[in-house]
């Protein structure tokens, strides 16, 4: 069983942005979802865990070793898929994977080749292995990304917004690949897509403005909201009035009508009807808590 503990982690950038604000989290095998709006500090946290930047204070202990002091320790067991990565032009998928395999320390040429080919096969890129990666479509590129993250049998995999920009089919395919991987190792999935977390993760945390707002199992968050979620269709200009009166969680258009959802322990009346909460509602509820 792998264990990653983050204790009181802080990071402030040169321009004054507090990217990580006293975060404490714990991860074990399985998929962990980091949910948060754009600019919440997810990427900063991931880069810090991956040893790409060092925190101002706090510790990150991976399997008993403080990787702030020894980032190489985690890098040797890490698979990292950054949010938006490019590739070198004019280099084939096979060659680029081989290069990264070498960087990850797979020095035995035979094993390396075997692993690269297996992975290419796994992500269904085998028949494109001789093609240049920068000519790949978005989905293929993401699959290449997951292949490279899997190189060298990592014990922890960090994936940052992996399904952004993928079509639904690609996204499904990608998620099933991720869920397979997540059985025996730690997989940290950073995303702003609540659905992905719901389908994949056993544990999750919600982050905003560099701080952890909530941490737990998705189902617990949903259960917490059960019986407290109410919905109603209103006119657009009524929003301010409702906002004042109720604890609004979300507004969304549905077939031309504006639906609002509010959180309330008791039935608010006023034509609101109770509905079954989803993870998305829980997420918005958490985000709104600090407002």
């Amino acid at each position: 069983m792998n264990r990653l503990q983050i204790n009181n982690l802080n990071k402030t950038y040169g321009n004054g942005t507090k990217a990580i604000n006293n975060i404490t989290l714990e991860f074990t095998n399985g998929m962990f979802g980091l949910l948060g709006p754009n600019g919440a500090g997810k990427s900063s946290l991931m880069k810090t865990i991956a040893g790409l930047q060092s925190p101002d204070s706090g510790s990150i202990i991976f399997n008993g070793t403080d990787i702030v002091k020894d980032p190489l320790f985690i890098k040797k067991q890490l698979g990292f898929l950054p949010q938006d990565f490019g590739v070198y032009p004019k280099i084939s998928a096979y060659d680029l994977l081989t290069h990264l395999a070498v960087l990850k320390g797979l020095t035995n040429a035979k094993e390396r080749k075997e692993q690269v080919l297996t992975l290419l096969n796994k992500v269904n890129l085998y028949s494109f292995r001789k093609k240049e990666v920068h000519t790949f479509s978005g989905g293929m590129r993401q699959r290449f990304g997951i292949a490279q993250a899997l190189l060298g049998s990592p014990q922890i995999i960090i994936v940052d917004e992996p399904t952004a920009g993928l079509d639904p089919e690609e996204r499904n395919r990608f998620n099933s690949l991720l869920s397979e991987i997540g059985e025996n190792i730690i997989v940290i999935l950073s995303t702003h897509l609540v659905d992905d977390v719901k389908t994949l993760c056993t544990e999750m945390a919600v982050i905003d403005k560099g701080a952890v707002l909530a941490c737990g199992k998705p189902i617990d968050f949903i259960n917490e909201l059960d019986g407290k979620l109410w919905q109603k269709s209103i006119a657009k200009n009524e929003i301010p009035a409702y906002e004042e009166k109720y604890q609004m969680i979300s507004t969304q258009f549905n077939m031309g009508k504006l639906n609002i959802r509010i959180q309330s322990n008791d039935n608010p009346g006023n034509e609101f009807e109770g509905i079954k909460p989803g993870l998305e509602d829980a997420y918005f509820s958490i985000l709104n808590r600090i407002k």
Partner: protein
Amino acid sequence: MKALLQFEWRTYFTKPGFYFFLLLVILSAVFAGTNFRVSISPDVFKNAPYVIAYMLGFMSLLCIFFSTVFATQVLFKEKDANFNLILYATPIRKKDYLTSKFIAVFSLSFLCFTLFATGFAIGQLMLISKSGYTDFNLSFYVQPLLVFGLINTLFSSAIVCSVAWLSKNKLMVYVTGLFIYILYMVTLIFSGSPLMAKGMPQSATAVLLSASLDPFGLSAYFLQTTTWTVVQRNTASIPLSGILLLNRLGVILVSFLSLFGTFKLFSFSVREKRNTKKISEKIELSVASVGGVLSPLKPSQSWRRHLTTLCSFTKIDLKYITKSIPFLLTCIGLLFYLSMEIYGAIEKGVRLPQKYATSGLMAKAIIENFHALCLIIILYYANEIVWRSRNSNFHLIENATPANSTSLFFSKWITLSIIIFFFTTLMILLGIVFQMQYHYPHIDWQAYAGVYLFTSFPLIISAGIILTIHKLIKYKHVGLIISSATVLFTATSLGSNFLSHPLLKFQIPYNGLYSDINGFGSYLSTFGWLHVFGLCIAFFLVIFITQLKKFRIKLLPLLSLIVLVVCTFWIALKIMKDYKPKNMEATILAQSEYEKKYRGFQNQPQPTVIDIVTTIDLFPEKNAYNIAATYIIKNKTNKPIDSILVNFADRITINEASIIKGNKTYPIKNQYTVIQLKNSLLPGDTAQFSTKFSYYWAAINGHQSFNAILQNGSFMRISRYYPTFGYLSDNEIESEVDRKNFNLGSATPLVTIDAPKNNANDFLNLDMIISTSNKQTAIGVGELEKKWETGNRNYFQYKTPSPVPFRFAISSAEYAIKKASYKGKNIEVYYHPLHYQNVDHLLKNAQLTLEYCEINFGAYPFKTIRFAEVSAFTRGFAATAYPATIYMTENVIFNANIGADKNQDVINELAGHELAHLWWGNSQIAPDNREGNVMLTETLCMYTELMLAKKMYGTKRVMEIVDMHLGMYLGDRGFTEEQPLIKTIPSNVHLSYSKSLVVMYQLAEMIGEENVNLALRQLLKNHAYPKTHPISTDFINELYAVTDTSMHLKIDDLFKRITLYDFSNKNTMVKKAGAQYELSINGTANKYYEDGKGEKTKTSFSDSIDVTILFKNGNEKIVTLSVVNNKMSAKVLVTEMPKAILVDPKVKFIKLENGKEWFIESSL
């Protein structure tokens, strides 16, 4: 559009970094202004308008740099920021967009160059009070700024912008910059300007072509100002007319055409390369499980991991660099540039014949020219591969791997090193191809190995330093600027001006000599070690930078740092063992001390050397020799001598020295010693002087050209290093400013032509024994008395049969020998076995010269004529004559391919010229050391040379030679003050050689060759040793004696004045006269006397002139017309239609515009 442009400007003018950059530009220009002092000649000011125009023109090379840098930033901004799709989708008009972008690039580049020119002017202004500077004049700077700076910025901006828009590839923009630079350099090679370092006279076609094609206009400027006088160079502004105007207009036109074409072709579209079509596919969802497929990672040894990482990075970077079109273009550019340089090195222009394409010549051309270009390429690629990961946005993935950053760093260094080796090998292959092309297939691997040692190694060191800078500086462009500046000042020839200590020059390639005879000589090991030293320093920096983390360092790197420090010190000590810093101030101080202490001896009687017996032991393998000499000195004056000033040469070690007079010995210890004699040396009395001294040189200090004791092919003008007596005025400081600083008064003037004659006869008898290593033959002067071998050394004894001047030399090499005899005289050629090609021809020409000189001038005074080849390490002459021996350098004569083309028979010229020195030089007559003395040596030898060319090749060849020398005279005369031939000073070689040849030709045409020879025979008869030393007017008097008085004025025009003619067309026409054509030739024929500084005085002119009528069918007819009072008017009936006329086709007059045809107006 205005808004667009303002936006572009604002991007720069709101950044503090940009102001910093501008400040850097100004500061470096101030630095350039104070440090680059071009001294064209002593008579042209260092800030003369001509010099400023030339320097700013030359520096406008920077426009390429500025416009390339701005183009890559301004034009690729949107693409780099991935903003291009949004921009292209706006309704912006193509014209506005492109125009604003172009104006931004152009204006920013021109701003930078203007600041540079300003800084340069400030730099020069700071020196204005120094000697050699004239008053500051702003317009002298503004004009070249516009003529060169503005137009060249326009050109380079237009070309790089066009390429940028059409290719949409940043690398292509850099390559274009490189190509413009290459084009510029190539045109300068063929500009034939005496100002270019390698400037050899080029053919008129080549000069015109380079003047037309030079995109930077400098070649055209050179051509336009060829005939300028010193005064014009000091005062006149740029003449915007003729070829220069055409060139400038042409460049502007080309710039606008290229922009116009680009505007037409450009479209707002995102380029999809043909072969990069996006791939997408539909696949079946994989159901196999991932878990368990991958075997867990086995821990591998760390060195192995580092090594494979290193290899993988290197492989991937190399693939990236080489698999691109710009790389291919760079190869082509390099090959083109080097081809032109090598071609220029083989074909030496119109003056010299083709050289053999030896490996040495190829290697030298590569070493000289490849390094700087490759440095630019390395700077670019270093920047590119360091930032590639980040630019491709791949750095997060790469950095999240456990790969070691040291491996990453070293892989970049190895990548660049491989690229350097690749380019070097490519250049060497080019050299070999040239060798095959020119049928000289002897490959000398030592020479080519030198290319690797002297260019690849320093480049690898520079690459390491560049990468270190990038590692330290985390900003891409700042890193590029700082690394560029660093290598500019530490790794280029520019840097060698500032780095005074030789150890600091470890990145600068040894740019010295290569000789077939001596290879790189001692320089090989010294400079080889210097580069190893540099490599140690680079390694030290690299390890220090990559391993030192938070002031902690691991044991292994620490140990290697210590080892490196030890190695560095050890090598430094090894290199510096014999280093003696050049200290100009100390030298000048010593000169001033000498003058102050000893100038009194100038007017005191001093003894003359009448006999020297000497032993010279050469140790070629040690670059050393020992000399023992005994002189007999005599008081040849009519006063008693009480004290004697003894002078030893610089750089030698005096082992012992003394004067023995009667039974008294006076020991001498110091370089300059005054001996007070107890009993005076009375007139006619003799004394003995004996000495032992030795000499050694180390490669770190460089060798002296005329004291070159080498492993093979040594040559020493050895008499220069023998002790002498009396005051040496040659030792005086020349600079007026320095003389003033030391309170020295005026220097010893050159004796004027009308000063009283000096009757001293100072010839001596010489007996020398030379010993050398057992494989070598030593060549001295006079007759070889005997030779023997003792103790594994070869001994040679040379004696002069009759007295000779105090001027002798020796050479020593592993020679092959070929002999012939002519009328009882032995002709011997000593040459390097590889250089056999011209030996027979030399023997033949020696016989012809001997025959001509003996018949026309008098008997040859020795039994033997020896020609000895010496290595190219001796420079400064092609051949030099001593009593019975002529030394010739390998690269001019023995290695010239005289059979190749153009009848440039340098052997004929030099055999004639040098052998003639045995009559006209220092064997039979010794011209008195005063104004015009070269007229009795070089002028007469040029004449002999020409007469021999006539004998061997006929009058057509004579005309070619005369035309060429006239061109060289006219081309060089505008740089220094000119004297009439009878007063010529030795430094004006264009007068003593080129003008002399033309004048002697005109003299022979005027009074006949026989009469010239008669006068020469008389000169020899009346002035040969032991008679008085002749002066130049003695020859004029001999000429008067053999000619009618009516000729004397014309002789004076040739020798005693600077006479120039100007013939110009005034309405020359042709009309039909029955079946014939009537040609009316009308023109003015002016004659001027010049004062040497360009001031002309017109004088009346009446004479007869030849005119060649050129017909449309190619026929020619020569008629002689008379000129009366500067007017030329005649009617000639001809049967065919004339096309043009050529006045004075046989060059009987010196005209500023030689060979210009007159246009004929036709009334038909």
